[in-house]
Each structure stands twice: as structure tokens, then as C-alpha cells.
């Protein structure tokens, strides 16, 4: 007669994930169980022990600890633990102790592995728990990192020092000195109610007033910064940090219902968190030479690894790295303008691709271009802009931003054009789409003005947003191109490896993962007329329309985040090991947990590509394999 452990079986059958398990599977599990009694206070598993079992609490209570010794969770009858160690790296990740006298049923690793691989709902259960844990881990990390939980108001030490826009330069300088502030908020008092019109900072006084030897009688409204970047008083400090990084502003007025509550400066944030990426950015702007910039560029990777270790998400890491890249570019342009003199006509320096999308990582090419004022005359002015472009691009290369292999750089005269030429160029790409041409110009549809007259870049964004959504042919060609790079998933959810020379048997997480996702997100974003550049922000804009089926936006966001973060961790690991980071991941280096989720993420990409093909009806006669 088959030994029937009724008590064990009946108890398991009442608790997840065993409650909807097939009868014979459950019998199989029960027959392999080991039972152990732990007296209250005794240690069940210790950190670093080999993970040998999944633990099921039959009676009693168990406490789970963090590495730090801090209590993480308390479990009781019917709960399971130990699955993370089994799924991740085979050692105990969370030490456990019996809080009460406890009777535990232990399921051996081999049985767990088999269930995990063959029983869908069991896998879902143990993995969903794991996601919750990851989320807990992130929020714990975020709690530990005050930048992510403290609000900007924390940095405000006093109400803003304000003055009417009608005052003169000297008066402004006097107020700032007397008040001991580095910025002055200027109020337009001509209406019923004073409104914030601009800001002047000590840096502005130095760079605009002193260097140009402006008379002390100069009206402040002529030199103040307008079109202010501001932040809401409920925003978190890290949001202020990202805003400063993105816009290269060192002062942010904090508003509460349009009322200035105070001004926070780069220095305030750095004081708050000396290790932040802003510290590096602050340092970038203090460098006086390309050599100096090159010297501090090695800190970029430290900053990156640090953010990864703090469990920052890919959006934050991408934004911070792009902010740092942008700062190097901006500082180089400032140094270039010092070296070659002020520009003969206004210009705008554009970042393209990942930097424009705020999705830059540590292994990156430089992609940039220049928009010149329409008064630009090549024979008179191009000498200056070519020199400036060379200075910046060489400088970026010295700082670790490799030259673009496709020569999409401001040094290429093709990409150094007056605004009207750029407009014609974009109009032509959109109105008369050709697949080949678009393949190479994809990168121009992620653009951002980062220095000079950035309004010119905004004009291009507006033109693109207005035209693209109207041209089905254009979208169809983009869609066709986007389908060229498919996720590396074969039949039966197996990975398809790359067979390109030395990097055999790897998956390129950029070419086969994040790039196809950002491609298809870009197309939907263009179709809905969004001017956002960042993929997550584009997804948000797409989500506000009915362009995609319900749930697709969330799925794409999760897939992008997961693939991006695996790619980021892979690079951080390489840096920590002293290897050169790349995008090629060997599946055997991933945990079963990561492999499984990566497959899910690739499946999302694959489905999204199918929808893309259907939605934009790629205008081609041949099949699109």
C-alpha cells in the first residue's frame, strides 16, 4: 500500500501554491518532503548556507532577516520561504530563525526545480512573491536614499529673495550680496498680482554682465533668464536632480500653486548627497580644460555602478548618465566658445539618440548635430562652427564617448545646417519616405537641443510632431525598419544566440532588446503626435491615447525596464570585475529568475512587433521575416 501522509498532504492542499496543484503532482511532492522541528529562537538557515530546500511552515512562526540583521518579514502557518535562494544563486539570501516552536515541511531543491519548470501556476506564485520582494527591496533602498524620499522643500532654508524686473544690474548685485544668496527671483509687478518672470544667478552676473562689461545701469530684465525651469514643492529631491541634469540649470525655483516658495541650488543638493551624479556634474562645470574633463570622466563609471547598487531604476540611471554626457558636451562647448570666441550667428547643439532620450549608459557613441541660424553663410561662418564641432567631438572622444561609426556628428558638414535646411530635411524624410534613407535617419527622430538657442530644436520637434502623425506612409516605413531587429526568442521559448565572430553564444541586449523596444515606442509616439523623447515618457503619452490595446503600454514598460536593468547590471558587474562593459549577455550567466523574465520580456516585444506590423501595414510586397 502506498504510504499516504494524509496530514501533510491535507495541509499543503489548503495553501498556495499547492492548493491548485494536480493530485498526483501533490502526492509526488508530499512523498519527497522532509520534516523538521525548530525550537523557538533557534536558527533555521544562515546567510550563505547552500539553498537546499523550499520551506513550508506547518505550524509556528518564522522570522526572516536581512543581511544587515534587520527584521525583514514574519511568516506563519502555510507560508513558504527559501524560494529566492533556490531561484537566484543557490545560497541562502535571508537568514531565518524560529520565532515560536515551529514545525517545517521541507521540499528538496530538485522537487522545487521541477515544479518551477513544469507547473505554470507554481512558477507564477513563487516568482510573483519574488517581484514583491524586489519591489520591497527597491523601496527599502529608496528609503535608505534620502534623495528619493525627501521632498525638495527640505532643501529650502528661506523664502526666495525677489525683486521687481524693473531694477538695474547694480541694484540686483547689491541685493544678492546683502542677502547672501546666489540667485534672485525677478517678479513682474505690472499686473494685478506679481508673477515670476525670470531669475538671475551669480553665475549669470559673472558670465553675462562682467565678461561683457555691461554698464551697471543695464535693466535686469535684459540679462535675466526667462522661460524658467521650475519644480513643484511636492517633488522629490531626485526629481530636482534629474531636472537640473537634464536642463543644465543650477538653480530651480520651487513653486507652490505658482507662488515661489524658495530656490534650490545645485550646491544644496550636493550638500545633501555628496555622492550623487550631480556632484560629478558640478565638478564637470568646474573644469577649465579638456584634460581636466578627461581626468574626471573616469568617475562616470563609478557614478553608474553606485546607482545600480542603489537599485535605481533604468529611467533614473539613463537620465543621470545622459545628464552627465550632456554636461560634458555643454562644458566642452563653453570651453570651445572661450577658445574660438562667441559664435558669429546663433546656433543650437543637438544631442541625438540615447542621450536625447535620456537613456544613455556607459558604453555609448556620441551622436550629435548642429542647427545654425538661418543667417548662416558657409563661407563666412562655417570655419568657426567646424572648429567648434571638432573641439567638442574630440573632447567627447577623450572623455570616453566614442566617435559615431555612422559619422552622425556635428563635425560632418551634412549635419551642420541652418534651421530651414533641417526643416526641409525632416519634411522630406516624412513626406517622401524611403526605407533605406529612413533606416539611417532613425536616430534624428530622438533629438534634444542641449546648448545655445535650444528653441531651434524645439521648432524641429514641433514640426516632426505635427507632420509625422499625418503621414501613414512614413509611419509604415519606420514600422518596416523597426521589424528588422527581432527579439532573440525561438520556438518553445528558447533563446536564439548571436553567431557574430568572437562573441559567440550571447544575446545582445541592446540590439535585440532595448533598441527594438525604443524603435517601436518611437513610432507609436510619433503617430500620436507626442514631443516626448524618453521611451518611458513616450509610453505615458501613448497610454493617454487609444493607440494601443489595453495593457500593452504597461507590458512594454515592464519589458523595457526589465531588459534595460539586466543590461545595466551586466555592465555594472563588468566594471566591478575590471572588465570592459558590453551588451552581450551569456544566458548561462543569468539566474533562472532572470532568464525566465527575460523570455517573458522578449515575448512582449515580439507581440508588440506583430501589432506594429498590423497597425501600420508596412507597404512592402515581400514578407517581413
Amino acid at each position: 500500500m502506498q504510504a499516504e501522509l494524509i496530514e501533510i498532504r491535507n495541509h499543503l492542499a489548503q495553501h498556495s501554491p499547492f492548493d491548485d496543484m494536480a493530485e498526483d503532482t501533490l502526492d509526488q511532492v508530499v512523498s519527497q518532503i522532509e520534516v523538521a522541528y525548530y525550537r523557538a529562537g533557534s536558527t533555521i538557515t544562515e546567510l550563505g548556507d547552500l539553498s537546499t530546500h523550499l520551506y513550508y511552515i506547518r505550524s509556528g512562526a518564522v522570522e526572516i532577516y536581512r543581511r544587515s540583521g534587520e527584521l525583514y518579514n514574519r511568516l506563519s502557518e502555510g507560508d513558504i520561504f527559501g524560494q529566492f535562494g533556490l531561484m537566484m544563486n543557490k545560497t541562502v539570501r535571508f537568514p531565518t530563525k524560529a520565532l515560536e516552536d515551529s514545525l517545517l515541511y521541507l521540499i528538496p531543491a530538485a522537487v522545487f526545480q521541477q515544479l518551477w519548470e513544469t507547473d505554470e501556476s507554481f512558477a507564477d506564485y513563487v516568482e510573483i512573491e519574488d517581484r514583491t520582494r524586489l519591489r520591497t527591496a527597491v523601496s527599502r533602498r529608496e528609503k535608505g536614499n534620502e534623495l528619493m524620499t525627501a521632498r525638495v522643500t527640505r532643501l529650502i532654508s528661506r523664502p526666495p529673495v525677489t525683486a521687481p524686473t524693473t531694477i538695474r544690474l547694480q541694484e540686483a548685485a547689491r541685493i544678492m550680496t546683502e542677502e547672501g544668496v546666489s540667485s534672485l527671483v525677478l517678479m513682474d509687478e505690472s499686473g494685478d498680482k506679481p508673477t515670476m518672470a525670470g531669475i538671475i544667478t551669480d553665475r549669470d552676473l559673472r558670465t553675462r554682465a562682467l565678461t561683457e562689461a555691461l554698464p551697471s545701469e543695464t535693466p535686469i530684465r535684459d540679462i535675466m533668464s526667462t522661460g524658467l525651469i521650475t519644480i513643484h514643492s511636492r517633488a522629490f529631491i531626485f526629481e530636482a536632480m534629474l531636472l537640473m541634469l537634464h536642463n543644465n540649470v543650477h538653480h530651480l525655483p520651487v513653486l507652490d500653486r505658482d507662488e515661489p516658495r524658495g530656490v534650490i541650488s545645485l550646491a544644496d543638493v550636493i550638500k545633501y548627497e555628496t555622492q550623487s551624479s550631480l556632484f560629478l556634474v558640478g565638478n564637470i562645470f568646474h573644469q577649465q580644460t579638456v584634460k581636466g574633463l578627461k581626468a574626471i570622466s573616469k568617475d562616470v563609471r563609478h557614478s553608474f555602478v553606485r546607482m545600480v547598487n542603489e537599485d535605481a531604476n533604468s529611467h533614473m540611471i539613463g537620465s543621470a548618465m545622459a545628464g552627465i554626457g550632456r554636461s560634458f558636451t555643454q562644458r566642452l562647448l563653453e570651453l570651445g566658445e572661450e577658445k574660438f570666441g562667441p559664435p558669429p550667428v546663433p546656433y543650437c547643439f543637438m544631442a541625438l539618440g540615447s542621450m536625447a532620450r535620456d537613456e544613455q549608459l556607459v558604453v555609448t557613441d556620441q551622436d550629435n548635430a548642429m542647427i545654425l541660424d538661418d543667417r548662416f553663410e558657409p563661407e563666412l561662418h562655417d570655419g568657426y562652427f567646424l572648429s567648434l564641432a571638432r573641439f567638442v567631438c574630440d573632447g567627447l572622444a577623450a572623455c570616453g564617448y566614442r566617435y559615431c561609426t555612422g559619422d552622425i556628428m556635428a563635425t560632418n558638414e551634412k549635419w551642420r545646417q541652418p534651421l530651414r535646411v533641417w526643416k526641409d530635411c525632416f519634411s522630406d524624410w516624412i513626406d517622401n519616405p524611403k526605407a533605406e534613407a529612413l533606416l539611417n535617419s532613425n536616430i534624428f527622430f530622438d533629438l534634444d537641443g542641449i546648448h545655445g538657442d535650444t528653441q531651434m530644436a524645439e521648432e524641429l520637434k514641433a514640426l516632426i510632431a505635427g507632420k509625422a502623425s499625418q503621414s501613414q506612409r512614413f509611419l509604415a516605413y519606420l514600422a518596416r525598419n523597426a521589424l528588422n531587429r527581432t527579439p532573440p526568442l525561438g520556438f518553445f521559448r528558447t533563446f536564439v544566440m548571436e553567431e557574430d565572430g568572437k562573441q559567440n553564444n550571447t544575446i545582445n541586449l541592446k540590439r535585440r532588446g532595448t533598441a527594438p523596444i525604443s524603435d517601436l515606442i518611437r513610432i507609436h509616439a510619433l503617430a500620436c503626435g507626442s514631443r516626448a523623447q524618453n521611451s518611458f515618457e513616450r509610453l505615458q503619452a501613448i497610454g493617454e491615447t487609444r493607440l494601443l490595446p489595453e495593457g500593452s503600454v504597461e507590458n512594454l514598460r515592464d519589458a523595457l525596464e526589465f531588459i534595460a536593468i539586466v543590461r545595466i547590471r551586466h555592465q555594472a558587474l563588468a566594471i566591478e570585475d575590471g572588465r570592459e562593459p558590453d551588451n552581450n549577455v551569456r544566458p548561462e550567466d543569468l539566474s533562472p529568475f532572470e532568464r525566465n523574465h527575460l523570455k517573458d520580456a522578449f515575448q512582449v516585444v515580439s507581440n508588440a512587433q506583430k501589432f506594429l506590423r498590423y497597425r501600420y501595414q508596412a507597404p512592402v510586397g515581400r514578407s517581413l521575416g
Partner: protein
Amino acid sequence: MAHRKRSATDATDAPWPARLAHCAAQARDPRLKAYFEAGCPAPDTPIHEVPLVALDFETTGLDPDRHAIVSIGLVPFTLSRIQCRDARHWVVRPQRPLNQDSVTIHGITHSDIDEAPDLEEILADLLAALAGRVAVVHYRAIERPFLDVALRWRLHEGITFPVIDTMAIEAHLHPKRRPNWLQRLSGERSVSIRLADSRTRYHLPHYAPHHALTDALATAELLQAQIQHHFNAETPLRDLWL
């Protein structure tokens, strides 16, 4: 906490390994001989190193000379782990009639028993599962004597083996289980050393009683709990077995 007791039936001065060796020499039935030859650990072996087997019989009554075994459950274990993989459960056909009272206790009916084998058919498996391990029972007046009588009946030679009795351990821990009339007046209750009640003292879960395998499992868990609370992993076997 040293704890040493010998009941009259087991009284002999020779330690268990020597006694089993002696039995091995005397045994004629090859299954029995093999069982004895497997022997048992030395008396000073720390309990955590001892291979154990929890054993429980359901019987038609309490007197081995008048009643019979109806089912046998056993679970091999050690102080740290109970291995369900090797748990066994047999229903056997008693050579004496079932009485209705015992049916209501263990739930094994005439029809179950009609299809069941005689104890002798499973004897090789049973003895193999017990060999080399120290049996753990709750109330030693059942399993050892019932098996001894059953084997004498069939093989004309008996069996003996060391047991650890979880009930005897509880009895030892609670020497004054029955309060006197004064204590009863002041509300003291008697301490039950029955399996289910003993388990409760160690916060072990309630298991439905009178299924031989469940009771064996319950007994194994109880011994793990008893050792952790009142002894320790290094306690020598000699302090525990009877």
C-alpha cells in the same frame, strides 16, 4: 538531563549491541537473522548521529496475547530531518477477529483487511526498514511485544530491539502527573502524556490520531521536539533507549 530506566521485560545487563549480536547468532529465520546482524549504534553515540525509525502499530486491542496487529506505519528519521520519502504503511490481515470497538478507533474495516496480506508477507520489508535503526515509539508496551508475539506465532522465534519511548520521556518529565486531592481542589489538572497531548506541549500541530503512519510521523516529530527542549544533540543514546 540523564534519564535511565529499564522495565522488567527488558531487564538484562548486556548493552543492546551485544544483545542483538547474541540474537543474530541464535536466529534461524534469515530475515530475522539479517535484522539482528544489522545491529544498532553503540550506547555512547550522540543522538544526532543515530539513525532512527518511528514505528506505530494499530492493533485490535492492547494485549499482545489476545489481540492482533492491523496496520503498521514507519518513518525513518534523524534528529534533524524526518524523511517522508522512505515512509511505509501496511495494512495486515490479523489472525484474530476484528472487534467492532477497535474498528471505530483505527478505521480499518473488514473489507480493508480481506484484501490485506498476512504480516509474514511483508515481514522482509518491515525488518529491512527497521534494520540498523533505533525504533522510536510512543508507549513501548505495544510495538515491541506485539511484533515479538506475532513472530513467535509465525516463525517460532521472537524478536527484541531497543526502543526510545517518547511517552516514557514525558512520564519522566512529569513525575507527578496526577495532582492529589488538595491540588485538584486548587484547580490543578492532571498532565496527560498521551501522544496528542504531549505534542501540544511542544506546540506541534494537531494530527488526527490512530492512523499508524500519521502516528509514527507524530512520534518522530515529538522526539525531535523533546530532544531540543530537554536534551541536546550530544545526548548519548544510552540515556534515551530502553
